[in-house]
């Protein structure tokens, strides 16, 4: 059997939104599986800590600040990674935002613009740039962090849900078009995972209890619950899987 496990030995990974939560856990999982990992987010300080953690696992790492919805910053990011490592095998589009929590009937235009820019335009621009590198080198794996909100509308987070649904479709569109370059594109759709971004959904006791009750497994997710799926999608273990969205929600069935 020709597949060498879930190993990422010799591979280079780029993770956006890599300073905390799901991005941080995934970056560390990639490093543990043998990859060199570049982490990016808008602000540098927290990012340097993650890069240090990666280096302490014996892998190379870079921390690069970038706002990926700005094309020149995305370009700069990809140039820096390829200049340093010569390739990009794995891209995890994990940077996301949810700045407005409330009914969409009251949402203002800025909330729409900010959310679509970061959650949708950013992954589109960066994937396009990275896919050109991957096409040249003979393939790669792209993983988009969507959300169960992209499959069922989340209460108080309508715009966020719309962007994540669009990201799931973008995943399929890219998978369809880029399969011929041996670039696989998949998404994860986490349920309520205990991170800072999702605090509004679990931090208050009543909300946390309600969210927990909805899961068949009877608990909220942790970032380590996500890292395993991301590693599977990044590695050759999923070599015939593309265009798929893996729901990681503890079984809201």
């Amino acid at each position: 059997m020709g597949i060498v496990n879930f190993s990422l030995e010799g591979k280079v990974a780029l993770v956006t939104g890599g300073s905390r939560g799901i991005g941080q856990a995934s970056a560390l999982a990639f490093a543990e599986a043998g990859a060199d990992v570049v982490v990016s987010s808008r602000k540098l300080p927290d990012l340097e800590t993650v890069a240090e953690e990666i280096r302490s696992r014996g892998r190379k790492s870079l921390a690069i600040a970038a706002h990926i919805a700005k094309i020149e910053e995305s370009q700069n990011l990809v140039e820096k990674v390829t200049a340093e490592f010569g390739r990009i095998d794995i891209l995890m589009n994990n940077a996301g935002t949810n700045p407005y929590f409330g009914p969409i009937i009251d949402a203002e235009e800025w909330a729409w613009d900010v959310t679509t820019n970061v959650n949708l335009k950013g992954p589109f621009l960066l994937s396009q740039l990275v896919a050109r590198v991957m096409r040249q080198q003979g393939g790669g794996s792209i993983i988009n962090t969507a959300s169960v909100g992209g499959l069922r509308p989340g209460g108080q987070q309508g715009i966020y849900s719309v962007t994540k649904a669009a990201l799931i479709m973008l995943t399929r569109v890219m998978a369809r078009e880029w399969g011929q370059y041996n670039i696989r594109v998949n998404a994860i759709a986490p349920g309520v995972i205990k991170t800072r971004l999702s605090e509004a959904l679990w931090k208050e006791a009543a909300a946390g209890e309600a969210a927990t009750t909805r899961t068949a497994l009877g608990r909220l997710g942790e970032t380590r619950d996500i890292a395993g799926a991301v590693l599977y999608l990044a590695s050759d273990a999923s070599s015939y899987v593309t265009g798929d969205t893996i729901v990681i929600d503890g079984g809201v069935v």
Partner: protein
Amino acid sequence: MRLKDKVAIVTGAGSIRPGMGNGKATAILFAREGARVVAADIRLEAAEETAEIIKREGGEATAVQVDVTKEAGAKELVETTISRYGSLDILFNNVGGAYGGTSLKVTVEEWDATMDLNLKSVLLVCKYAVPEMIKSGGGAIVNNSSMAAYHSHGVYAYSASKAGVIALTRCLAAGLAKENIRVNCVAPGLMDTPLVAPIMTEKRIRRVEERVPLRRHGKAEETAYTVLFLASPEASYITGQTIPVDGGLSAQ
């Protein structure tokens, strides 16, 4: 090793013809990851061949001849597993196939036989495996469906039975989560496995190269790795799901 000291049952663990099928590849992979594997098949020599490969690699396996479309067979399979290894943690319900009879030309016998093989077998093995998993404090079940569950397929009984497997997966996932048992599904697309060898024509290969985004058939090992992922602790928060292993066919 992801499955160290775990006990796993794989049904349909032998290959119907020479080569590597989904069940055989998964049984071998489970063993490489440290599991003790019960390789079950309706043909003893097929089960033994898989078990022999595992043993040659230094793994632990037992070949069992069983018809899991019969309740007595399912019961016996689980009993044999427990008497041999003492517990049960993982079950891959892989057995499946199609009995001729396209469209409405299917006979009642063919319809029933397909439903028994692809769907009833899942229920029956779970019926006896689950109480043992509960005794072990939990477990993971992976069922083998097919992309035929979503797309129309000439053999109606095959599509319908595989769609049934997905529905049953969700029912089992909801019902068994409180017992710490996760239940998920793989849905292979167009694969190059011994099961489809007789229809693997030049024309089919060309069609796959045109239609599938990854431009090739899938391999049994690629199903096996997805099953391994779902059976392992790395999928600890995933239950009730179906992962297509289809080279992007369904993304279109």
